[in-house]
């Protein structure tokens, strides 16, 4: 049998000789990017969904191009493109205003990249959810003389939420897993940190399984919250099945 048949748990110790602390730091980075990217994506998604439903023809087509490209090109490729293009564009923009180039932190770049990808997905999810809201409810709100913003805040958003939550919660899970792709551009989130730890100590299985357990915990904990949220949003709905 192999020499490391007895698992060397001390490798996962939190303090320096062990790699547990490093792994947890990577995990925190991953979660930060996932939350930031998801929030940015949701903002883009709300705008995108309303633009697609109520915007002019040109805006609608532009948004269609955005969602099509993001949904047809692999995330890995998009992440590389956005990562380089995003930092390049920002620096050129800053150069226009004669400000020296800034060093964009990996965190901000990661959030931007994940956010843009998520934005396209949530545009589609939210568009579907808004379309599921009975048109009469929105018409009634308009008939009451509510301004468009008020219709949005009081009727459309709350009424579409039960339809949107299953899709949006899946997008959150996708966001947490997409952060792993940032390993390819060298951002030290959990997957890359794990590979570094595993490469240094040669305990590949141990570290990859440990990272897997962390990701799985995140998913399972998220699922609990999603369940609670879904029950809350669906209150007052007729029980299905």
């Amino acid at each position, binding site marked *: 049998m*192999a*020499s490391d048949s007895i698992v060397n748990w001390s490798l996962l110790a939190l303090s320096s000789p062990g790699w547990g602390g490093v792994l947890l730091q990577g995990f925190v980075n991953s979660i930060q990017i996932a939350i930031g990217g998801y929030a940015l994506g949701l903002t883009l998604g709300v705008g995108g969904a309303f633009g697609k439903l109520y915007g002019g*023809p*040109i805006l609608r*087509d532009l948004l269609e191009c955005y969602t*099509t*490209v993001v*949904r*047809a*090109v*692999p*995330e*890995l*490729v*998009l992440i*590389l*493109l956005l990562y*380089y*293009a995003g930092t*390049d564009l920002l620096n050129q923009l800053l150069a226009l205003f004669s400000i020296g180039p800034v060093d964009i932190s990996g965190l901000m770049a990661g959030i931007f990249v994940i956010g843009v990808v998520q934005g396209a*997905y949530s545009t*589609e*999810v939210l568009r*579907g959810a808004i379309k599921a809201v009975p048109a009469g409810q929105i018409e009634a709100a308009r008939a009451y003389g509510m301004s468009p913003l008020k219709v949005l805040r009081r009727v459309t958003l709350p009424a579409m939420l039960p339809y949107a939550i*299953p*899709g949006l919660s*899946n*997008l959150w*899970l*996708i966001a947490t*897993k*997409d*952060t*792993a*792709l940032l*390993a*390819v551009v060298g951002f030290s989130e959990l*997957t890359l940190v*794990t*590979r570094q730890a*595993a*490469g240094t100590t*040669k305990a*590949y*299985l141990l570290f*990859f*399984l440990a*990272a*897997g357990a962390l*990701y*799985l915990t*995140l*998913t*399972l904990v998220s699922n609990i919250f999603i369940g609670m949220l879904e029950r809350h949003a669906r209150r007052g709905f007729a029980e299905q099945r």
Partner: protein
Amino acid sequence: MTDQTTHAVAFTPEDLPTARSFFQPHRIVMMLVFAGFVIGVAVFMRWDWLPRYLPRLGWGILISLVMLFSTSILGFLLAVPIGLAQVAGPWFFKLPAKVFCTVIRGTPLLLQLWLLYYGLGSLFPQFPAIRQSFLWPYLREAWPYGVAALTISFAAYEGEVMRGAFAGVPAGELEAAKAYGMSRWTMFRRIWLPRAIHRALPTLNGETVLQLKSTPLVATITVVDVYAVISKVRQETFLTYEPLLLLALIYMCLTGILVVAFRTFENRIPTRGA
């Protein structure tokens, strides 16, 4: 993933433009602007490297497609028993299937890929039995790990889809089959499986498009697919944008072809209009 999410995340046949939709005034203007952009890209960016790499790119695309289809088919073959076990199996089949789906769907594909390639790949050489077996020449390569990881991931996502599809077949149809005196196997072969696949088809197609988007990950374990070829180009020519833009274009074309193929396929299956 629910059907709705697959639909939102994957490019589906409904997203294809129709021929007529191009001839609206604002679209013609937009297309002219876009054509100008494309010409600008073609003229002002460097493309002199392209002819040198064309053969390798072709091979890369072929490898990507082989990866896509082999893992989709293998994954689907695995997904049927996984879905069935969750719907109709006894608890000792149901539980492992459920755990499998949860674990695979709850962790990133990149991590699974690296776990198989670096983890198992570093473990296997320590066993003389494996080193001497006929499998060893393959296990030293990278692609079996890529195929394994992609297959497992596809099987887990599809298993969940098939679970829903099996559960969604109306009980009356199965009862009718039983009343005809069909054996359990005949019933499964003639009614349950075809009806479940029929129900799941749009989602299955969406998942296959998503699988295409996952294939470039195998480039990180040295499988030379189209992504790896483009990475090579980037290393050798020191260009950032041109190869990546071409790569995005290639994937968009592949997705488009795949989606059109699925639409023709779906249209050939008769459905009750609703």
